[in-house]
C-alpha cells in the first residue's frame, strides 16, 4: 500500500471525505478494512470502569469547593497557577516602574507578542533560553517573562490543562534550566489561584 491508501481506507471506514479516493476496494483493501472494523469493535468491547453516584457526589462537592480536589495533585497542574500569577505580578511591577532589561537581556527575547502562539516549533528555538535567562535574572525581569508567557492562545488554555507548547518548552530544557524556570513559576504562583 502506498502512503495514501491507509488514510483513504480509514476515512472510508468512517464515512468521511477522502474515503472515495480508493475507488473500488481491492480484495486486499477489503481485508484491511475488515481488520480495522474488528479493531474498532474490540476497542468498544473492552471492559469499562464503572462509576456511580459516589463519583458524582465527589465531583459535585469538589466543584462546589466543599472538598479537596482530586486525591493526587499533579505536579504540573501547579504551573498554570504560576504562569497566571506571574502575569499578575508582572502587571504590578509594570505599575511600579520596574528596572528595564539590558540590551543583552532584551536580545534574549527573540519573540514578540505577535509571534506568540506560533506553535511548538518556535518554542524549541530561542524562546526557552530566553525564559530561563529571565527566570534566573529574578523579579526585575518578570514583566518580560510574563510577556514571553502571554501567548494569546495560552490564556484560555492555561487553566484547562497544560498546553502542549509549554510541555515542548519544558522538554527542551536541561534539568537545571527546567528547575530554574519552574522555580520562577512556582515561587510566584503556586497556591494563589487554583490550588
Amino acid at each position, binding site marked *: 500500500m502506498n502512503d495514501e491508501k491507509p488514510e483513504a481506507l480509514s476515512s472510508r471506514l468512517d464515512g468521511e471525505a477522502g474515503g472515495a479516493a480508493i475507488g473500488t476496494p481491492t480484495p486486499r483493501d477489503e481485508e484491511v478494512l475488515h481488520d480495522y472494523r474488528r479493531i474498532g469493535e474490540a476497542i468498544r468491547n473492552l471492559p469499562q470502569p464503572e462509576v456511580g453516584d459516589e463519583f458524582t457526589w465527589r465531583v459535585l462537592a469538589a466543584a462546589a469547593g466543599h472538598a479537596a480536589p*482530586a486525591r493526587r495533585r499533579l505536579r504540573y497542574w501547579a504551573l498554570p497557577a504560576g504562569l497566571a500569577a506571574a502575569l499578575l505580578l508582572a502587571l504590578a511591577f509594570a505599575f511600579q516602574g520596574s528596572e528595564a532589561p539590558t540590551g543583552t537581556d532584551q536580545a534574549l527575547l527573540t519573540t514578540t507578542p505577535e509571534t506568540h502562539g506560533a506553535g511548538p516549533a518556535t518554542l524549541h528555538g530561542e524562546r526557552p533560553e530566553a525564559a530561563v535567562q529571565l527566570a534566573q535574572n529574578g523579579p526585575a525581569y518578570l514583566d518580560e517573562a510574563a510577556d514571553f508567557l502571554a501567548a494569546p492562545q495560552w490564556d484560555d488554555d492555561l487553566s484547562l490543562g497544560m498546553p502542549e507548547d509549554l510541555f515542548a518548552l519544558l522538554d527542551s530544557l536541561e534539568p537545571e534550566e527546567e528547575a530554574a524556570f519552574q522555580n520562577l513559576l512556582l515561587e510566584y504562583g503556586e497556591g494563589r489561584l487554583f490550588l
Partner: protein
Amino acid sequence: MSEPDDWSLVANAQNGDPAAFAVLVRRYQQPLVAFCYRMTRSFEDSQDLAQESFVRLHRHLQRLEPGARFSTVLFGIARNLTLNHLRDTARRGRGKTRPLDAAPEPEDGAASPGQAARQQEIGQWIEEALEALRPEHREIILLREMQGLDYEAIAEVLGCPKGTVRSRLARAREQLRQALLEMGGEAL
C-alpha cells in the same frame, strides 16, 4: 418528556441551578472516566482526571457559550489533563502508569464460551497494542472508536485540523493492526 440538551443544562447551570450541572456530570462521567482509564490504565488516576475535568469546566461555566459541541469542550479539557498527567509521570521516571487496581470485569454477554474466550484474547491483545501506541495515537483512536466522535469533533477536542485527524487516525489504526498481526491476531 425528552432529556434537555447539553447546552440547555449549561445555561441552567450558569443561572445557578446546581441540579443542571449534576445532570451533565451524570451524563458524561462514564465516558469521561472510560477515556481517561484507557489513556492511563489506572482506575484511580482516571477518576481523578475526570473529576478535575468537571471541576475546571464548572470553574469556567460562565465563559461557556454554545458553539462547539459540549462533549468536545469536556473531552478537550480531559485530554489536556490526561496528557499532562502522562508526561508528568514519564518525566518523573515512573514509567507507564500501571493499574493498581483490578481491571474491571467484562460484562456478561450472550457469547458462547468459545466466543467469549476468543473475545477476551483479542481484548488482551488490544489492551497491549493500545498501550504501546504513542499517546497522540491512542487518544485519537479512543475518541473515534470508543467515544464515537466524528473527525470534526475530534479536531475540536485536539485543536488540530481535520486533515491531521484523518492522517493520525489512519496511522494509529495501521499501527494497531500491525501490532496485532505480530501478536498472532491473523484471524481478527
